[in-house]
């Protein structure tokens, strides 16, 4: 399937890995892909901004949302009586500033590859189907955006929670995604 991706669509997939690594995510879901598409210049970003989405704000919300999925969850630790701020403070006293975050990166860094969630994989398949439906020979970022927002999905929820008109964005993405 990836051999039919344009260079820009491939780099979105690679960038989604980078987004996931920065957020210490265990998996890549549609929101990581959405950040990558919104940050890269391409048809997806154009459809989003032409559709009235504040792209910078979308990226900020998406990054915050995926960071909240960090396994080192302060709320969950507080619920069993552990004050993560205090643990961080004591750990940094011995190991230096940012030691716990660095250790998280060391742990994640061991894995060359962060896996996609089934939902994100399905989005990639849907992007292929959208490209076929629109008669396009290549899959670009616009098709990825269509795949990400076709059904109920984390990316679509993130968009609609931010007040985006998802159908309008999809319509614009379709316009840029038809075979020339």
């Amino acid at each position: 399937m990836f051999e039919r991706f344009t260079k820009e669509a491939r780099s979105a997939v690679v960038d989604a890995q980078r987004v996931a690594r920065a957020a210490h995510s265990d998996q890549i879901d549609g929101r990581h892909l959405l950040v990558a598409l919104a940050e890269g210049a391409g048809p997806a970003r154009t459809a989003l901004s032409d559709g009235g989405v504040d792209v910078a704000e979308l990226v900020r919300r998406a990054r915050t949302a995926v960071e909240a999925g960090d396994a080192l969850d302060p709320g969950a630790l507080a619920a069993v009586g552990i004050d993560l701020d205090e643990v961080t403070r004591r750990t940094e006293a011995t190991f230096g500033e940012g030691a716990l975050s660095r250790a998280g990166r060391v742990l994640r860094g061991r894995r060359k590859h962060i896996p996609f969630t089934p939902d994100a994989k399905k989005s990639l398949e849907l992007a292929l189907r959208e490209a076929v439906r629109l008669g396009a020979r290549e899959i670009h970022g616009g098709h990825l955006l269509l795949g990400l927002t076709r059904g109920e999905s984390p990316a679509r929820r993130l968009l609609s929670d931010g007040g985006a008109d998802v159908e309008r964005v999809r319509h614009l993405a379709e316009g840029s995604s038809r075979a020339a």
Partner: protein
Amino acid sequence: MSQQALVASAAGDDPAAGLRAVRALRELADRLETLQVERARRLGWSWQEIAEALGVSRQAVHKKHHRRI
């Protein structure tokens, strides 16, 4: 009820919150282990000594950490 007590009771009742806490504890333990093992090696501890302190086999600790340090 204090906010802390509310949080604690939520953790007790709700499997999702409890499991989330277990996951966070595991992540915290893994990160602390990484930092402590790195430091022990820098201070000249052998893999055998580290393994004994962690209560695991020398092979296990070496396999888990040697590439990072």
